[in-house]
């Protein structure tokens, strides 16, 4: 079926299978592979996107049901070569290893800091508890969120 999506501020069209998730549509039909596919059941958070500003796993969103909503992906956070402060903080804190989970963490951290400029450690942990990382051990990720908070709201 043909669907019309508003992704990263652009009106896009895609021919998708009716049962396609938003994640599949983004990755395979719209050329936006920044959102990663790692579990397809909402457990790992690698596919996190914002849908009408709400943090969701795009693998659990039916692509067809995303029509009429504003979708933002990791690709939209840093424009061109300039990184968003959250992205910069992940690099600076050494919060990235293989990087496969990173786009999901970036989107989740962005959503957290948008709503809560100075989160406590417990709030950071709660906000990122839907994102699995198999490499870093999370400590540097928490540090990155703190850094980004300072950078964005100092």
């Amino acid at each position, binding site marked *: *079926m043909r669907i019309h999506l508003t992704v990263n501020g652009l009106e896009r069209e895609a021919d998708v*299978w*009716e*049962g396609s*998730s938003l994640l599949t549509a983004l990755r395979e039909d719209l050329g936006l592979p920044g959102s990663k596919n790692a579990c*397809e*059941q*909402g*457990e790992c*958070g690698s596919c*996190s996107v914002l849908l009408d500003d*709400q*943090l*969701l*796993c795009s*693998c*659990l*969103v*039916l692509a*067809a*049901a995303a*029509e009429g909503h504003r979708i933002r992906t990791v690709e939209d956070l840093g424009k061109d070569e300039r990184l968003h402060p959250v992205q910069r903080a992940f690099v600076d804190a050494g919060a990235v290893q293989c990087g496969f989970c990173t786009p999901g963490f970036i989107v*989740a951290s962005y*959503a957290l800091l948008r709503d809560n400029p100075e989160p406590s450690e417990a709030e950071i942990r*709660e*906000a990122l*508890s*839907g*994102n699995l990382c198999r490499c870093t051990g999370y400590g540097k990720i928490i540090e990155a969120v703190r850094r980004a908070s300072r950078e964005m709201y100092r």
Partner: protein
Amino acid sequence: MEIERPRSLDGALAALAAHPGADLLAGGTDLMVEINFGRKRPEHLIVVQPLAELRDLDRNGAVRVGAGVTYTRLLAEGGGSFAAVREMARTVGSPQIRNAGTVGGNLGTSSPAGDALPVLAAFDATVVLRSRRGERRIPFADYMTGPKRNARAPDEIVVAAEWRDPGPAQTFLKVGTRNAMVIAVASLCLVVERARKSVRVALGSCGPTILRAGEAERFAEELIDESGWDEPLDVSEAAAARFGELVAAAARPIDDVRGSARYRRHVLGVMARRALERVGSVVA
């Protein structure tokens, strides 16, 4: 696969009347997984998630929670007579899952591990169903009939859950195998409704459906009868242990990938004691 995206509840009911048994897509946390894993290829799928009529949340007098209310919204509610609801919502999945998952979704799927269900059971909630034929109101105990089985007719949509405010003496406890994104190994909701001299305990993930621990409820009621319904309850070691035993005895658990029947029974007893100690002291 045919996708219907009705703009109103009436539209959804009409679509469902035309295709009874069609799959309903709410937050997607269950159904999308089935589709992603290739375990389900619905012929007709009706997207009910955006319907405004399902999103009401009313706490004036009787409580009404629309089927489309997400766990994130429940978490944002104040405590008091929503304490157990909030405690439950906090244990659901992760922020992403709480932003998507709905009470109606839990009711629709009717898994014994559905986090909201022990709360609805302990609150003596009523499930409100609607179809083109009209509205039906079913007590939760009659709604859920088995694992992933319920009394919803193929042309009905769960529109809300309703309950009478039971007061603030309530708590929800859950044991899982890690601290986030965890399905309950066992869960328990305890309500002491002092105004009506009623204690209710409901157990999740401990049987084919949500179970009520009737004997434990009566035992606790007798305890409070003695200490007085307007007074805080000082639970003795022996009474707490007895209450735990009675709750554990009410479970009908199985061994599965998340835990053994033996452990489930044991930990229900521990949770029951802690819940009674916590809730017994709460007097409005």
